[in-house]
């Protein structure tokens, strides 16, 4: 039995009382911080506090349109916080504040939205950030797929940090903080179209604390990115192209869970291209690799960290994979979506 109280309707987005009640009840209470509670049209921050925390202001934005909204290991809310926090953190920034813009399809159950907000708050607390301003729109049925979320984040980069894709040098070590392909496999599985059953969970997690500890140990990390859409292969290709070096990877050292492997073997997918939501790739001076790995492995977000290869001269601008079989091949960026094959 659903009453009009149980679902989001167009009046929730109309700017009137229904919307105000929704914001108060769901977002202000849910995200629980003073800045948001003030409900001004903008969040305000003391500049001198921010300036004393670092040298550069970092800002990033991302929109989240994942389907299904809830999947093993996470949901759209957790993703929306982690993704933007991580985009800040891989620049060496300490993430501070997030905005949250929601586009809701008319008819979305209120309870669903409540759970998403709760998940965002839990993740924000875990990451040590606040969601301080936002926007809510409701659109006609069919004009959006259940819920779209945009988060924009700001953070501060301390002095002495210079992380850039072009800084990779031959001899550098390539590190990763754990198993690849979990998120992509979990989502494909959760969509149910391929009728496979597994216990694969998304690896969605904030990486800022892990990165802070890594930078503490080795401030001169050359490159850092999170391997999201397009997978590990796409990030490594980006690094190779920006720095005009070669990312030489040893297939034997790539960490892939057995179930993700099984999943890929059945469908003819390549784990190198599957999405991740809690994995970073770090290009570091060779001398710092062992120490960094030791620190990473002590952190919950990095216990399966491993060195998967090294940066070499050639072929310039490419990712090279030394196959477990003793052969060698180039791995290009992902083009389009990876589709299951039966051939």
């Amino acid at each position, binding site marked *: 039995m659903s009453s009009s109280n149980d679902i989001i309707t167009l009046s929730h987005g109309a700017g009137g009382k229904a919307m105000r009640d929704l914001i108060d009840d769901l977002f202000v209470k849910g995200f629980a911080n003073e800045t948001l509670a003030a409900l001004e049209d903008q969040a305000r921050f003391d500049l001198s506090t921010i300036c004393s925390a670092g040298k550069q202001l970092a800002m990033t934005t991302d929109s989240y349109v994942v389907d299904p909204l809830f999947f093993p290991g996470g949901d759209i809310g957790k993703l929306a916080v982690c993704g933007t926090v991580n985009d800040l953190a891989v620049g060496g920034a300490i993430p501070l504040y997030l905005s949250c813009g929601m586009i809701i399809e008319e008819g979305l159950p209120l309870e669903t939205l409540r759970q998403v907000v709760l998940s965002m708050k839990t993740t924000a607390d875990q990451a040590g950030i606040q969601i301080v301003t936002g926007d809510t729109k409701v659109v006609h049925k069919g004009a959006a797929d259940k819920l779209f979320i945009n988060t924009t984040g700001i953070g501060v980069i301390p002095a002495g940090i210079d992380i850039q894709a072009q800084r990779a040098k031959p001899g550098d070590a390539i590190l990763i903080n754990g198993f690849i392909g979990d998120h992509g496999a979990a989502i494909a599985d959760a969509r149910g179209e391929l009728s496979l059953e597994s216990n694969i969970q998304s690896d969605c997690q904030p990486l800022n604390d892990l990165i802070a500890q890594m930078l503490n140990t080795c401030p001169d990390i050359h490159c850092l990115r999170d391997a999201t859409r397009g997978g590990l292969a796409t990030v490594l290709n980006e690094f190779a192209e920006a720095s005009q070096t070669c990312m030489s990877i040893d297939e034997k050292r790539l960490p892939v869970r057995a179930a993700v492997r099984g999943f890929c073997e059945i469908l003819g997918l390549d784990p190198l291209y599957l999405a991740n939501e809690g994995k970073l790739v770090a290009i570091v001076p060779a001398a710092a690799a062992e120490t960094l790995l030791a620190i990473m492995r002590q952190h919950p977000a990095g216990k399966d960290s491993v060195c998967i290869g090294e940066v070499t001269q050639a072929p310039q601008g490419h990712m090279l994979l030394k196959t477990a079989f003793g*052969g060698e091949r180039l791995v290009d960026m992902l*083009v389009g979506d990876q*589709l299951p094959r039966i051939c």
Partner: protein
Amino acid sequence: MKYVDEFRDPAKAKAILNEIQSLLTKTAIVKQRPLQIMEFCGGHTHTIFRYGIEKLLPETIEMVHGPGCPVCVLPRGRVDDALSLAERDNVIFTTFGDAMRVPGSQKSLLQAKADGADIRMVYSPLDALNLARKHPDKQVIFFALGFETTMPSTALTILQAEKQAIENFSLFCNHITTAPTIKAILDEPDMILDGFLAPGHVSMVIGKQPFEFIAEHYHKPIVITGFEPLDILQSIWMVVQQISAQRSTVENQYARVAKASGNLPGLQAIQQVYELDASSELRGLGKLDHSGVKIRDDYQQFDAEKKFALTKHAASDPAETCCGDVIKGLMRPWQCHAFGNSCKPETPLGALMVSSEGACAAYYNFGNVNELLARRQKDTVNS
């Protein structure tokens, strides 16, 4: 993973490669030119590229990539046929992932899906049948592709549809047969081939006998091959052994899966539901006798072409492409001038650039494109 990892052991690879190398020094032909061994099956092409096998082999062996890629030989007009079925109202068009990006005259299935057609990827024809059960108000059509490997699956699905009286399910049949396709390659006047790796999963269904004409009539060694890298290397070794001893027989390297008599229940299902078509068109090979199958009249209610009175399309490949010659192995992908220019994975002109086992896609994705383009430049200058 059992039955997989053991056949990817690099330590064993080294031993086989050494055997191959020492045999080659005793093989007369290589004094004049490299050995040309064709792997017919697209799945084998994929393995060869994925594991970098071609680079491991001595330079006196060249792998020639054959036309055993059902998506690659599918004529452009048939993609247009598929689209005309998929874009009908009230239809759920289901397909294997392989076919989604193949270009038709105007667009691909993936583009049609973006334009609003209800096109869904499935892993199994049984999943398509389940969709028909779940959506009795829609017509579910399954795009049936593949050589004999996949025929038992689609045939059994039709038989199940009949048994369960599911009326809103039909098949768009594009199955093709292996033997006539191999024969067409062997009959090519410009083709030089010294041996074959036979498709292991086709043999799993049809057995050993259908390949015997290659050894007996054309005197070429042929080895039924598995799909792991050690399988491929061992088979190449077996082919080289035969060439060296001047023998030609059908051998089975994949005995753990492919039995000499094939799969009887699978063959029975195929016989019951399908019959050989008089002739079918295959890209690059033209119209070949008995190279395709069609659904028997007894099961015509499951034949999407009859059910929806399909008007067939005829379409030719873009003028600047060389898909036919590359499929036959007469040309290497980079020798086609569209390769790397107008034809790339993100803007494919033909099926070979999108199929995961198409030779063009394999060279583009797994080879060094710039090197290949430079090679083409050099070949053009020198010719």
